[in-house]
Every structure is written in structure tokens, then in C-alpha cells.
């Protein structure tokens, strides 16, 4: 077990920022931590890194208690929490040296290796103040990777990046995990990215963990049906009426104008097809799809109505 959080809570005055969070990550996993703004993601990450003291519960990294054996735990962990803030007047090389605390030939060799991997080698001797947002994010990732950690935390690493930058960061994360088997915990508001990259996901809302598990298992249980019919508004209204009556296991009907999307509690594509045909609707396409992370997240955080 690389990371284990047990009943982790943090209270700021009257506000319970994190409430009894328990989850763990195995070696080699890429775990996505998602949640709305103010859900407690950053507080949870800061407790894992030992920046914030938990009100109760415990965190271990590679078997070391983050609070009692901080140095040992942090020796196995590289983290970028929130925005990577560097010393603007110093060069990237000096920043990395100061912040990582690295030294010696082994460190220099590792730095060259990581700089090449992240593609920042030619910028190492430039002042960080002159860096673009994307370069600062890359430098942050380099800092997290530099100590040759077994476990890396990247908090919104694609924040402020253009589409090209997002794709590059995604490939860096994937490639690093594939090549070195490093365990990665990543947070992002871009749920498509999380779905693409991560093998496991944790959803946190109002300080509580509301879903945790392997991405494939969580989304496998959740299916949806997409269909194209001749009279979409009428078909959607009919299906909504059917759902309200409870005669079909439909939990949500969405009129997407060119198609209708149904969220269902059990597979029922054949029943939907039969019902629509019986009632005079012509169906040109009907398929069962696995629910995506975005829909799953919206449903779990009760945000469907706000869509």
C-alpha cells in the first residue's frame, strides 16, 4: 500500500472541511481525486503531505506515518499542491535545488534526466519570473518527479494550460507511470482528463468521500441508453412520463436535441425500443453506453438539475 488514509478529518473552527475520509492507493495506480470547488480536495491533499494537521485520523505514505515519521514519509513522496509558486528572481535550476534539497552528482544526473523527460532542459538557467504558465506547471511536475519518489501528487497540473499543453502534461503523467511504475494521485476539474488517465477515482463532496473505486467498476454499474427517434421532443416527453410512472427503470431523461440520453438503473434498451415502437415513434438508432465520469460525478454530487 502506497497511501492509506484512515478516518481523516479536519475542522477549521465550526466548519468541517474533511469528514472521515478513508481510502488507499496501491503501488502503480493512478488515482483521480475529484470534487466541486470547496469540497475539501486541497485540505485532504495538504493533510497527506503534512502541511495541515488533521483533527482526527491518520495518513501513512509507504507505511510511514506522515506526522510521526514525516521525513521518512516525505522521502517517498513528491507533491505539487495548488499552484506551484517558485522564487521568481531565481533560475529554474536554483529553484529546483533549493526546494528539492538535492545535491551531488546523483542529483545532477537525475535533474538532467527529468529535465529532458519534461522538456525543460533549455530553460533550466532562466529566471522563473520569465516563464509562461505552462512552463511553471512543467517545472512543478519536474520538482515532484525529481526526488525519485514512489508516490507523486499533482494538484490540477493542467490548470491554465492551452489544449496542447494539457495533452502534453497528460502524456507525461501516463508515460512516467508506465515507464517507472510510479503511483500518482492527480486532481483536476477536467473530468474527461481524469477518466482518460486514471485507473481509480475518489469523489469528494462537502468534505465526505461519496465514491471510491476502480474507474471501470464504478462506471460499469452505471449504464445509459442513447437513441435517435423521428420526433425527439415528443419522444423525450413520452419517456419522461414513462419514467415518472415507474414502468421503466429510467432515472434521468436528457433531450440533447439531436438525440435522447437516458440514464437507467438496469439494462433496458429492448424494453425502451419496444415501448417507443408500440407508441408510434420511429427509431433510427439505439445503443447502450457506459456512463461517463462527468455524468457519474454530476449524479453523485446532486448537480444534475443545474445542468
Amino acid at each position, binding site marked *: 500500500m502506497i497511501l492509506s488514509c484512515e478516518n481523516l478529518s479536519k475542522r477549521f473552527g465550526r466548519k468541517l472541511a474533511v469528514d472521515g475520509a478513508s481510502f488507499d492507493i496501491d503501488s502503480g495506480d493512478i488515482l483521480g481525486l475529484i470534487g466541486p470547488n470547496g469540497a475539501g480536495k486541497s485540505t485532504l491533499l495538504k493533510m497527506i*503531505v503534512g502541511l495541515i*494537521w488533521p483533527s482526527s485520523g491518520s495518513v501513512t505514505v509507504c507505511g510511514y506515518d506522515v506526522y510521526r515519521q514525516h521525513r521518512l514519509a516525505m522521502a517517498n513522496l513528491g507533491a505539487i499542491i495548488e*499552484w506551484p509558486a*517558485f522564487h521568481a*528572481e531565481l533560475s529554474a535550476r536554483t529553484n529546483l535545488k*533549493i*526546494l528539492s534539497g538535492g545535491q551531488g552528482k546523483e542529483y545532477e544526473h537525475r535533474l538532467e534526466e527529468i529535465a529532458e523527460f519534461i522538456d525543460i532542459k533549455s530553460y533550466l538557467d532562466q529566471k522563473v519570473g520569465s516563464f509562461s504558465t505552462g512552463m511553471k506547471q512543467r517545472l512543478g511536475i519536474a*520538482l515532484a518527479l525529481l526526488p525519485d519518489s514512489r508516490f507523486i501528487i499533482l494538484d490540477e497540473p493542467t490548470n491554465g494550460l492551452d489544449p496542447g499543453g494539457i495533452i502534453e502534461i497528460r502524456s507525461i503523467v501516463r508515460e512516467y507511470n508506465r515507464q517507472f511504475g510510479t503511483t500518482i494521485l492527480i486532481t483536476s476539474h477536467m473530468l474527461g482528463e481524469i477518466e482518460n488517465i486514471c485507473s481509480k477515482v475518489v469523489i469528494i463532496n462537502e468534505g465526505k468521500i461519496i465514491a471510491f473505486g476502480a474507474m471501470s467498476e464504478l462506471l460499469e454499474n452505471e449504464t445509459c441508453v442513447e437513441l435517435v427517434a423521428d420526433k425527439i421532443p415528443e419522444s423525450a416527453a413520452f419517456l419522461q412520463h414513462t419514467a415518472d410512472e415507474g414502468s421503466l427503470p429510467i432515472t434521468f431523461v436528457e433531450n440533447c436535441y439531436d438525440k435522447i440520453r437516458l440514464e437507467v438503473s438496469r439494462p433496458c434498451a429492448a424494453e425502451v425500443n419496444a415501448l417507443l415502437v408500440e407508441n408510434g415513434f420511429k427509431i433510427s438508432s439505439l445503443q447502450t453506453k457506459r456512463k461517463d465520469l462527468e455524468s457519474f460525478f454530476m449524479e453523485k454530487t446532486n448537480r444534475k438539475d443545474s445542468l
Partner: protein
Amino acid sequence: MIREIWFEIIKLKSQKKNYIVLVGHMLFLGLCYLSFKTSKLHFIKRNLRANQFDVDILDYLDGLFFSRAGLMPTFLVLMPIFICTLAGGVIAGEIQQGSLKLHAGRPRSRTSIVMAKIFAVYNLNLLLCIYFAVIGVLIGIALLGYNPTQLVFPTGFKLGNDITLMTGPDALIRYFCTAFYYSFSLMALGSVALFFSTLFNSSTAATVAALTVYFVCFIVGQLPFAAEIKPYLLSQVMNGCGGIWLAEIPWHRLGRNISVLAFYIFSFSLLAVCSFNVKDIK
């Protein structure tokens, strides 16, 4: 630990705001020189006449006299403001900037982080004190020359109405001893500022809090009913090195002041370490 201190010094060196004090000092010396030239030290002449001393002050107006006159304002006004800004920003400033999260998230103890910052502030403070002392003498001698006989005017240090004549080297040694005393005393204020820096998440709040403590002590020290606590007030012990200029140096009083300063440094550094160890770095 030495590497950590060195890293802290590199960080402090890279901050442009820390160079403002150098400009401030040059401006101060320039204005002092202008004042010397225009006033011709009438205020001291009046004081000497009132105390029935028959000395022509202009005979002794040289570079060392000038540097001595500039010593107290530099170390009791300019440097306290600087040291409060410097020490007040080392932790709170990094929290504000966000870099402390990167720093504290590495395998290093919080105690070592604070200790490295304390030593870095002390090193920079000592360097600046030596720089100000040396530059004061050099500029003074360059502009006003050097007289081998020095007139020391202890009333300037609020030490009665005595005047002393001493050799140039003797005055110079006492001048540098005074500068070292001030560097130590400034560290007491620096420790207070550093403690506030661990309490607040804003460097301005930490700086203002430390300056408030300093000036409140200074004001209380002027009150007639504060005679009993006056010898222990921060501002009072910080300025407690005037005895160095007396013919008979009061070692006992000097030793007591240094002990009180050491107590201030130790207690507030300890408080800073304890406070930072339980702090949530948000």
C-alpha cells in the same frame, strides 16, 4: 543545516525589497553630511557652553565623528524597520507567495526550516551591520578627513554631560564594538518578528506587529512610572551599549543587557519553532 541556511540566504539575496535599506542608508548619510555642513554643529556648541566646557567642536569634526553621529539613527530606526521587514517576511511571506508549501512538503523537519531562517536572517543582519559601520567610516573619512584625536560626546548617548578625548584607533574599536552590539540587539527584534511571521499568514501583519512591539517598548521606556521595568524593555536593552564610549566601561551593565537580549532571542526563537510546528500551512 548549513546548506539550508545557505539556500535561505540565496532566497533573501534575490529579493529586491531587501536592497531598499542600502538606498535608505546612503540617503541618510547624504542628508547627515548636508546637515553637518549647514548647521556647523551649533546645537553641540550650545550644549558644551551650557555645561561649561571650553572646546572648539569644529577642531574635532572629522570622518569618525560623523560616522559616530550616524550610528544610532541607523541602528535604532533604519535597521529595526529593515529587520522587521526581513524577519517578518521569511515565513509569512513564503506562505503568502505559496513557496513554503513546496518547501515544507519535502523531507525536512519544520524545526530545521525555522532554524535555517533564523540563522540566515542573523547572517544577513550581521553583514549589513558591518557594511553600514564600514561604509559610514569610509564615507565620513572621505568627506571630512581624519583627526588622530577623537572627541567623544557621551551626552549623545544620554550618558550624562561628560566629554572624553581618545585616540583614533581606540574610538574606532569602540565604534565597531557598538556596531556588533547593535547587530546582536537587532536579532532580538528579528526573533520577535520571526515569531509573528509564524503566527500570521501575511508578511505585512508580521512586520507591523513586530514594529508595534518595538515602538510600544520605546514609548513605555519614556514614561516616568516605568522605571522598574525600563531596563528590561526591548527598545531599552537594544540601545544599551552607550557605556562602551565611557572612559570606564560599565561591564556589569553591558553584560546584563547582552543577557537580556540573549533571553529575548532564545525565547522568541523557541516560540517561533513551537508555533511553526503546530501551524497549518494553508
